């Protein structure tokens, strides 16, 4: 087997005003190297003008998500060896505007995330004298959704996100649902108004790829389908008891 591998990396320079193109680089193929190590080798040794995001190198920060051979992937936890003998095509995440090379603009995602209020919302003046007790079952209800690292691979995998830019999207809905399921939270009614719009849960057509590509094994598709059931029940309640308290 060759001791090098070709990385075909998407390049886009906003100052040129042109279309993105691919540039090939030959990098060492080492058994312990991730795709991110290959990109860092290019940046350090071959071409310092290449732009990409990374930080923790251990699948925690969610910064280094890219399309590797057409699949949304965390480059810090994907071995280069998996793609031998190559070439490996690395591109920015699908369905996001590209700022430069492999760097995408996450402003729209962050605005959607803020819109669904992904934090504990209390309606009362909550000043507990001691810690809030949660049973293992209550923790289990939301735990897997709290593992989301906002890497946005699920947005790149979701064709609905690409076709409808207004779709709130898998990660934002999963995180909203994480707080809906939290026994400390009282914000479900506020989130219901946002999530039960067409651009919320009802835009999802259960493609399911968001759950397949998630590097933290979160199941955003399940969160969306669960919330569809909740929203349906709430709609029936408000239809049958229009003046009742729900």
């Amino acid at each position, binding site marked *: 087997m060759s001791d090098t591998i070709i990385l075909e990396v998407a390049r*886009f320079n*906003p*100052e040129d*005003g042109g*279309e*993105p193109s691919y540039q090939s680089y030959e990098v060492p193929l080492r058994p312990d190297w991730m795709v991110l190590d290959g990109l860092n080798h290019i940046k350090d040794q071959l071409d310092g003008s290449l732009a990409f995001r990374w930080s923790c190198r251990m699948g925690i920060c969610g910064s280094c998500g890219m399309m590797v051979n*057409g*699949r949304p992937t965390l480059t810090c936890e994907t071995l280069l060896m998996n793609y031998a003998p190559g070439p490996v095509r690395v591109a920015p995440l*699908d*369905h996001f*505007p*590209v*700022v430069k090379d492999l760097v995408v*603009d996450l402003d729209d995602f962050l605005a959607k995330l803020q819109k669904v209020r992904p934090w504990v919302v209390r309606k009362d003046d909550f000043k507990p004298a001691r810690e809030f007790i949660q049973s293992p079952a209550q923790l289990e209800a939301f735990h897997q959704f709290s593992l989301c690292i906002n890497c946005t691979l699920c947005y790149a995998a979701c*064709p609905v996100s*690409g*076709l409808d830019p207004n779709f709130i999207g898998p990660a934002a809905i999963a995180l909203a649902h994480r707080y809906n399921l939290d026994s400390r939270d009282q914000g479900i009614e506020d989130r219901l108004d946002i999530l039960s719009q067409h651009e919320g849960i009802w835009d999802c*057509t*259960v*493609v*399911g*790829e968001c759950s*397949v590509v998630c590097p933290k094994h979160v199941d955003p*598709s*399940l969160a969306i*389908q*669960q919330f*569809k*059931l909740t929203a349906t029940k709430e709609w029936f309640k408000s239809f049958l008891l229009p003046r009742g308290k729900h």
Partner: protein
Amino acid sequence: MPQYTQFQPKEYRPKMSAYWYLDHWHYLRYALREASSFFVAYFCVLTLVQLAALGTNATRYAHFQAFMASPVMIIVNVIALAFFLLHAITWFNLVPRVVMRQMLARPTPDIVSSAPNYFVWFGATIILALFIMGVL
């Protein structure tokens, strides 16, 4: 003067291909699942036409049977049946994801919640087949 200061930010906004569902087998499978709804509707309409012919008179029903026995209709119906099966199987397999997993008290394997659909399906098919063959 650099151009970017005048038109900042100058991002590249990729357009999604009209053939995005050919990019990956998972997307193609999803597109076929969605398209299979058309063939389910086709079978519904076909059943209504069959019942209408049956309710009119014997000659009309004989014409319907002759039409359905033509090679073209047999090919159409084989294709429609394949899509119908795809529709049923893919949606039965989605039941755990959509409904059952949250209705059951504790986490269970997907097969536990999708199996009842298959039992009802096969049971109804056997009963109908026995009825048509005159056993029941």
